[in-house]
């Protein structure tokens, strides 16, 4: 489960947002799962998978603190100590259903991989992606190539002004897949779409379910985000 992977590329794709590709052979990666990445800090950094092509795994990350700054300074050919893939992803077998993907900010990346996989399975999707402003937008064309894509920005500098909940209200769908900030997940989890899945982010310790750092309250007790999730049916968690 722990392996050293080699960095193939590491570039900025939007404001404070980096795309890193690593060579990770012989691993099956389900959309919605994550890798726990070692930096020089004590705790690993959980990063969701934005894409998998052959042996190449893509991570998108926002440069926020010491760990992600260190990742941003990594060069092609450097290796990373990773654990993974970890956790449980999105349920893909949505044949015959209308699927809407709703992502916010750095929650957008796992939705790209899931959309690609659904597209390969012949399942049509609509994507609604929310960002702060034009400079923060990434992967717009890549998403467009896979189906209808609606972009929102809080300041209106690109796409529709406002939050993802605006366009979501006019969309008729059977299933919702979502990843993004807690406030956004809370809002989309309350949508009238019958089946709703949310991918939750939390500060993690071990990443494998042993330390109880990343728990989330549930109707009955709690769930562990790292090992029970990070993707949950919205009915299973209290956001």
């Amino acid at each position, binding site marked *: *489960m*722990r392996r050293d992977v080699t960095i193939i590329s590491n570039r900025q794709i939007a404001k404070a947002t980096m795309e890193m590709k690593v060579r990770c052979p012989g691993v099956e990666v389900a959309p919605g799962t994550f890798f726990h990445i*070692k930096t020089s*800090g*004590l*705790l*690993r950094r959980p990063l969701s998978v934005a894409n998998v092509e052959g042996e190449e795994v893509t991570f998108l990350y926002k440069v926020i603190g010491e*760990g992600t700054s260190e990742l941003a300074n990594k060069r092609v050919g450097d290796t990373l100590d990773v*654990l993974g893939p970890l956790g449980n992803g999105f349920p893909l077998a949505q044949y015959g259903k209308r699927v809407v993907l709703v992502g916010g900010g750095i929650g957008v990346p796992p939705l790209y991989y899931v959309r690609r996989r659904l597209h390969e399975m012949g399942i049509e999707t609509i994507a609604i992606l929310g960002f702060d402003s034009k400079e923060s937008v990434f992967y717009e064309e890549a998403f467009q190539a896979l189906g209808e894509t609606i972009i929102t920005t809080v300041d209106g500098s690109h796409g529709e002004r406002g939050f993802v909940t605006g366009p979501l209200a006019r969309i008729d769908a059977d299933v919702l897949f979502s990843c993004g900030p807690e406030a956004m997940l809370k809002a989309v989890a309350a949508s009238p779409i019958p089946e709703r899945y949310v991918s939750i982010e*939390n*500060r*993690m*310790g*071990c*990443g*494998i*379910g*042993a*330390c*109880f*750092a*990343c*728990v*989330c*309250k549930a109707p009955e*007790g*709690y769930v562990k985000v790292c*090992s029970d999730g990070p993707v949950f049916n919205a009915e299973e968690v209290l956001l």
Partner: protein
Amino acid sequence: MRLHVELPGLQLKNPIIPASGCFGFGEEFAKLYDLSILGGIMIKAATEESRFGNATPRVAETAQGMLNAIGLQNPGVDAIIEEKLPFLSTFDTEIIANVAGSTPDEYVEVARRISADPTIKAIELNISCPNVKCGGMQFGTDPVMAAELTRLVKAASSKPVYVKLSPNITSITDMARAVEAAGADGLTMINTLVGMRIDIQTGQPILANRIGGLSGPAIKPVAVRMVYEVAQAVDIPIIAMGGVRTVDDVLEFIYAGASAVAVGTANFENPYVCQEIIEALPSRLDSLGIEHILDVRGKAYAQLVSRP
């Protein structure tokens, strides 16, 4: 046999034990390696009823360390006995139960129930958790209360009792002597140091509990010093913990006077760390010219130390 360590209630095939709270009930790590290689396992704290613990965020990274404020989340002692111990009993390793509570009665009840299970070989009395409002560390910072609780739990437990000491105290040797006099069979030390981190974007503490327990390499020198002092002050054995992540860290604690060593936070950084330390021990002993690992126990303060 050069790694074998015998302690009250415990036949450790080697002195490496995952620390309580960092290893759950073993299930997750059992998927990564055979738990039977471990000297023992200190399982997650048990309370009488199930506890959810604190709000999140529960962890924050610090320089060479981390803060946690989990808050003794556990399914309750009966669920642990019914659902967790049968799995742990399938491994050839010594299981040590960590016992916590809000009142003396709760500690006594949890110790009585869990010590009666044949899978449990010893009790670790947790009087040092900094992350709960009631009980926990309040018992571990007053030697009179700690001694009284030790006496009560010792009377209720059918297995040897190791008292887990808090470093958040002026004189840890006074505390160690007090619980030894009250009948403790051994000591485990140290629990985490109380700390805080503040997010300068919000101006607020990062942890939802505001304060948390500091662990990791940052606290190792504090732990080594405390083990060194306590080992000279008491006659009961010490299982040491605090920032261990390499084979040399283990030896440092043995030199300071410990008889076994627990590995905590390092399991998060590298879930295979206990396995790697156990595998590295024999060749490290060879290179240092040490025959049995306990040949150097307490050597930091005494040149001649006999084996147990």
